[in-house]
């Protein structure tokens, strides 16, 4: 439609375009400003961690120097000490075992649960789905007391296998909820086609649902990984021995002795502990976003 057709004089239209361009410029300026503020806010702690982990103990202790910069030379001594003189490698190994096992258990349980709740309509399935989500809302600081009794009765107190059993209670509800949303967004005709093609329910799940819902499953797996890797309350309550301890609690308890803080090693430990989740996110971020939004925008 040309200008004359809509009855707008050329000069007025030009003014409208300029005003739109000005609005867009302001929107962009504000967006960049707030993005910068958030980036500084969230990147400051990791930056502080890196800087401190690379300083000598002497520089860390000197209050006169600027804590945000390295002024007396870079050292990797804290990393070397952490890996050779502490139980950090054991904590790391334990954390890897606990995380991988609890992610595996979480995925098996929540994929089966989500599939049945999303697709196999049975009496009470709707209530059950809501109920599962509600359990996620109970904080672990309340749950650890009854959980302590259960873990003790199973003889798994002070064993990282106890953590493998306990951590899925935190991850299964949310992962199931994410995947119910994702599975529900898969067209119903797809399972009907599979049924007619001759697939049973497990074949349908394995050959159709899991490949199609992979972004949702990866999103759930990343969530389970993050929760299992970084949990603090349960290992604090259930693990005491150094050889059973995991990274989160082990690093803190072994590197803070009374009022002596091994700042350099603490920061190096935090860096090494943060690396695996960072790597996982870096590679799978696209899947993570796709998985979460698919569940969220389902009509």
């Amino acid at each position, binding site marked *: 439609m040309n200008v004359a057709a809509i009855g707008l004089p050329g000069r007025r239209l030009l003014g409208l375009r300029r005003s739109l361009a000005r609005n867009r410029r302001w929107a962009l300026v504000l967006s960049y400003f707030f993005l910068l503020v958030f980036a500084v806010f969230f990147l400051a702690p990791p930056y502080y961690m890196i800087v401190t982990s690379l300083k000598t103990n002497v520089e860390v202790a000197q209050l006169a120097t600027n804590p945000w910069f390295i002024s007396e030379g870079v050292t990797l001594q804290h990393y070397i000490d952490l890996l050779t003189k502490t139980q950090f490698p054991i904590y790391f190994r334990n954390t890897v075992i606990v995380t991988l096992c609890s992610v595996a258990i979480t995925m098996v349980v929540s994929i089966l649960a989500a599939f049945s709740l999303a697709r196999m309509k049975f009496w009470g399935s709707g209530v059950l789905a809501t109920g599962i989500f509600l359990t996620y809302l109970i904080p672990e600081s309340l749950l650890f007391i009854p959980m302590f009794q259960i873990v003790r009765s199973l003889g798994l107190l002070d064993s990282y296998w106890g953590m493998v059993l306990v951590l899925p209670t935190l991850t299964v509800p949310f992962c199931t909820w994410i995947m119910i949303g994702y599975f529900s967004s898969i067209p119903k005709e797809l399972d*009907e086609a599979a049924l007619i*093609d001759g697939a049973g329910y497990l074949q349908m799940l394995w050959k159709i649902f899991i490949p*199609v819902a992979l972004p949702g499953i990866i999103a759930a797996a990343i969530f389970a990984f993050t929760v299992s890797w970084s949990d603090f309350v349960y290992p604090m309550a259930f693990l005491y021995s150094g050889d059973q301890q995991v990274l989160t609690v082990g690093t803190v308890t072994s590197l803070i002795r009374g009022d002596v803080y091994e700042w350099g090693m603490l920061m190096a430990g935090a860096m090494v502990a943060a690396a695996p989740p960072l790597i996982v996110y870096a590679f799978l971020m696209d899947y993570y976003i796709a998985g979460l939004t698919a569940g969220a925008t389902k009509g």
Partner: protein
Amino acid sequence: MAEVALRKLVKRFDRTEAVRGIDLDIPDQEFVVLVGPSGCGKTTTLRMIAGLEEASDGDILIGGELVNDVPPMDRDIAMVFQNYALYPHMTVFENMSFGLRLRKVPRQEIRERVERAADILGITELLERRPKQLSGGQRQRVAMGRAIVRHPKVFLFDEPLSNLDAKLRVQMRTEIKRVHQKVKTTTVYVTHDQVEAMTLADRVVVMNGGRIEQVGTPQELYHAPRTRFVAGFIGSPAMNFLPCRLVENGAVLSVRLSEQLAFPVPEDRTARYRPYLDKALLFGLRPEHLTDPRNHGRPHVREFAVMLDVVEPMGMEAMVYFTIDGTEVCARVEPGSVTGPGRPMRLAANLEHFHLIDPQTELVL
């Protein structure tokens, strides 16, 4: 291949009865189309045949065998869905062979069957592509291919052309008919599009409100509808319905549409209509039987004058709209004979094709 039989089939969803005791016999190799408006129970009936919905009452027989409690995979049927339902993570070859792989058909045979089906449908060059790389028409062909490779007893189509644009729909319609002529498998096809139903079907089943209104060949339904619903549903534009009264002028019966307009009843129908003398009835005549006077010279054609309200030129023909005693009427005429909106025009009604309907029973008399 096999025949399909439905006996007093009922489907209830809570308190709503979607299908109300229908009986239908579909002989081997026949192409039957279930047609009707939304909510008439056609898709529910198809899904019951497929085993995707449980029948609340009645029996479903495929090849003479009662299949009410047989799961879909064991009914030996194949279904083509409205949105294709192709597995997005599989290639076309994998999509088409999925059912065969699950049934442990030897690999060599799978390849042969898929290639033969792909050849029939002209999709050989697409076998390694994934569904998202295909156009709507190609996806529909793959969905049909997935059904063909199985060599099922019955093909079920659930509005397979609804997602395609008008041009492709016509093309795929011909394609489906060609495939059926080649493979000759008993087919049950659901659509709400009566043109699709008429062009594809050996027999059309018109459904309304969970019941079968009429079963017949496209010609039977067009020329001899049994109810007002069928008369109005089949044909495009729809049949005109005008309130009328049957009157007698001497020995001649006439259908009076208004003070000025009355049509004589052909002699062969006089005896049939006489019991309805002086009763309020509905006069039904299709737009194509209400046309230019110059094309008619036969005894059952009656000319009359109208004042045109709206003219819709369509190239090879034109639809003109006018009113008779307050009721809007459509006529299909040659574009050259149209005078224009707000101007008078002479039309001719072909009285060999009119119907009289009892408004109480909605039955065609």
